[in-house]
């Protein structure tokens, strides 16, 4: 058997490693900034681009796709080559993947603060960037699968399975959730509306957590933890069971994000059942990771790399225990919309993803640079600082979440809400917000320790861009059945790429045509009094989306007495049929807005946007004074109406030509009404449109 000599590509691994380090720090810095802003709204410095509601999506996207994303690619490019005993399939694709991904990150960092957003959580980026993501992601997939095909090791180690599942599922999720009809270069409307949009979105977002933050990192755990501990995984058999059980269950759990909403009850129950089942494979995986260290716990005491990994796996276990618990309706009734969710996701992000990434970096960088880690002591310090940061982050957030959840539901003996003022429940937990911002800063400080340590390590060593290895070529012992089916030579040599490419081609083409027609029928309103938005309301809604109001305000009143007392009639699925995209939100830092229409006079909203504290003393909402000075851009109103018509919104035929007149008429009415309240506002400002939208919210089913 001929032994072949080949080189592993270390440069691409190094590039992704640096990217994850740098973007990680940037993403967390934005996180720390918004953690301060949540109780000191003036920290936006009066600039729209640095306001909480625009930065929060930037923070989540940066941490998920820039920090964890580059972390995944770093680990995959290192481990896949070695597990397959092969160089990456194509150096050109590797480079395209790396630079393409960085371009996506930079364009996200520019467009999100500028207000270009679809407002679907973790899928906020507008359609041109969505297309770029799909292209770069498929390039990654081709590169990975090409490497697997030309592998010199017949057995595919379990980590590879996790990587394949990541690629395949994220492709499907991204395509389905991003089907939008463009209005202009940076504005589009999702084809789904209301409750359907919510379901698709949370099917996506849940599985983004599952297949972007979890499965690839489990693959990395199964590679780097045994490597760092220098002993095999506790049970290889369990790891295989872990993988297959996890992927078959995970994809059905999405509806647990929409418990007690207007989503049909049976879908909610389906989500709950699968979520609870998820405990089994998740904990199997966690125990498999921890038990790998059996007989080596003495080394954990001294080796910071193992410390990082052990706490990461423990955090995985805690988060995957908590997730199913939060998916139980009675727990969710208390936890949803509160900081409990924020605590939960940060145990996952800071603990599982963060610490595992740090552990891998400390292990990997010295190997890439053919040297030793500059300081074990500094790495140890980083470990303790990071752990402390997580504790100072998570505990106050759990405390805040439960406190606020209980306060929302508290009634007096006479049957009135104990805390009818929403603001009271926010001010109660401000001390917790303060501690959280300190916790986040501590965690970020730890990263600076790592920066210095890795910098000194890199300085001391020299990058080994090519690492030579030897392995015998793989000889096909078993003639596969595929060969008999596909007799053509070209197909035989590339069956997997061929299948994947055709699946993607068929999905994209088919979906674009089929999905809208499929959905339009179901968009016929079931509540006859629910009308489409007027042109001015539509423009106001787009401003609501642009400013990211959904990051703090929900539009979904759950059927609890505590909520109907506070906000009004509970929300019904039929009320959202014209909402492209839905704006249900997932967190109430401010009150729910679904029934805010007609609750306050127009002038109240005007003054509230100009200076929230003038209407609501002590308010922590940032001011939005630019809405008052900005002229409303109505250039695209005809196009917007046409897209809505395409999506089945029943505007009369030819209404696009009439929209501008209607818009101006409604705007001058609102300006008139403001004038009678002593507010002198011009009718062509953005605030007028926003007021029109807010006053429209939730009034369709109210008696006139």
């Amino acid at each position: 058997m001929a032994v072949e000599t080949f080189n592993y590509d270390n440069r691409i691994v190094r590039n992704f490693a640096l990217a994850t380090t740098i973007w990680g720090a940037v993403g967390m810095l934005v996180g720390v900034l918004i953690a301060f802003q949540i109780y000191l709204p003036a920290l936006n410095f009066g600039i729209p681009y640095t306001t909480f509601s625009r930065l929060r999506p930037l923070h989540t996207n940066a941490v998920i796709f820039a920090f964890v994303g580059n972390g995944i690619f770093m680990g995959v490019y290192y481990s896949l080559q070695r597990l397959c005993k092969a160089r990456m399939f194509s150096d050109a694709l590797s480079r395209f993947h790396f630079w393409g991904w960085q371009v996506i990150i930079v364009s996200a960092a520019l467009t999100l603060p500028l207000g270009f957003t679809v407002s679907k959580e973790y899928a906020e980026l507008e359609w041109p960037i969505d297309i770029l993501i799909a292209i770069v992601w498929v390039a990654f997939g081709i590169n990975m699968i090409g490497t697997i095909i030309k592998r010199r090791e017949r057995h595919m180690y379990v980590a590879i399975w996790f990587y394949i599942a990541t690629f395949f599922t994220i492709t499907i999720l991204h395509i389905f959730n991003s089907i939008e009809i463009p209005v202009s270069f940076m504005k589009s409307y999702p084809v789904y509306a209301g409750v359907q949009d919510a379901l698709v979105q949370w099917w996506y977002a849940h599985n983004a957590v599952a297949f972007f933050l979890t499965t690839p990192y489990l693959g990395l755990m199964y590679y780097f933890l045994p490597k760092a501990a220098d002993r095999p995984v506790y049970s290889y058999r369990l790891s295989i069971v872990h993988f297959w059980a996890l992927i078959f269950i995970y994809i059905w759990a999405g509806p647990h994000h929409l418990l007690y909403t207007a989503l049909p009850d049976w879908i909610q129950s389906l989500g709950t059942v699968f979520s609870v089942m998820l405990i089994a494979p998740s904990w199997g995986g966690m125990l498999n990771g921890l038990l790998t260290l059996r007989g080596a716990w003495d080394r954990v005491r001294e080796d910071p790399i193992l410390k990082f990994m052990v706490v990461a796996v423990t955090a995985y276990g805690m988060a995957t225990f908590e997730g199913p618990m939060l998916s139980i309706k009675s727990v969710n009734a208390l936890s949803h919309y509160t900081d409990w969710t924020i605590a939960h996701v940060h145990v996952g992000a800071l603990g599982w993803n963060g610490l595992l990434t740090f552990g891998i970096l400390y292990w990997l960088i010295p190997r890439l640079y053919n040297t030793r880690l500059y300081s074990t002591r500094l790495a140890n310090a980083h470990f303790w600082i990071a752990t402390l940061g997580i504790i100072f982050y998570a505990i106050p957030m759990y405390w805040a979440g439960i406190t606020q959840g209980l306060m929302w539901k508290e009634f007096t003996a006479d049957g009135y809400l104990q805390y009818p003022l929403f603001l009271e429940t926010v001010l109660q937990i401000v001390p917790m917000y303060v501690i959280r911002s300190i916790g986040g800063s501590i965690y970020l400080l730890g990263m600076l320790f790592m920066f210095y340590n890795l910098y000194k390590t890199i300085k001391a060593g020299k990058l080994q861009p090519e690492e030579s290895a030897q392995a015998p070529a793989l000889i096909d012992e078993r003639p596969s059945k595929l060969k008999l089916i596909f007799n053509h030579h070209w197909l035989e040599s590339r069956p997997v790429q061929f299948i994947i490419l055709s699946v993607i081609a068929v999905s994209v083409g088919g979906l674009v045509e089929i999905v809208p027609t499929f959905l339009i029928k179901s968009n016929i309103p079931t509540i006859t009094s629910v009308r489409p938005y007027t042109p001015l309301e539509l423009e106001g809604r787009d401003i609501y989306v642009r400013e990211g109001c959904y990051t703090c305000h929900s539009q979904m009143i759950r059927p609890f007495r505590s909520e109907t007392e506070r906000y009004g009639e509970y929300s019904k699925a039929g009320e959202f049929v014209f909402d492209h995209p839905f704006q249900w939100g997932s967190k109430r830092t401010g009150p729910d807005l679904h029934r805010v229409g007609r609750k306050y006079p127009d002038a109240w909203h005007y003054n509230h946007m100009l200076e929230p504290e003038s209407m609501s003393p002590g308010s922590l909402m940032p001011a939005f004074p630019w809405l008052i000075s900005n002229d409303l851009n109505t250039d695209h109103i005809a196009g917007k109406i046409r897209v809505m018509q395409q999506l089945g919104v029943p505007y009369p035929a030819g209404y696009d030509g009439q929209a501008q007149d209607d818009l101006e008429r409604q705007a001058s009415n609102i300006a008139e009404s403001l004038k009678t309240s002593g507010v002198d506002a011009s009718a062509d400002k953005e605030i007028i449109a926003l007021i029109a939208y807010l006053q429209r919210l939730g009034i369709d089913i109210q008696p006139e």
Partner: protein
Amino acid sequence: MSVMFILILASLFVAVCFLIAFLWAVKSGQFDDRHTPSIRMLLNDKKDNKNMHNIDQNRNEMREN
């Protein structure tokens, strides 16, 4: 709620693909050996050996200091 059918179909599509992959993996003998792969992945290419015990070396030095 017709979108539910789309999502179920998409999810089933994913599940069926994984099922096919699983059946292929079982049939082609991927899981016949459930032990040695976990050890084989630990065997290093020669380059790696030199730095294998970085931390151990650092630790020893710390002790000596």
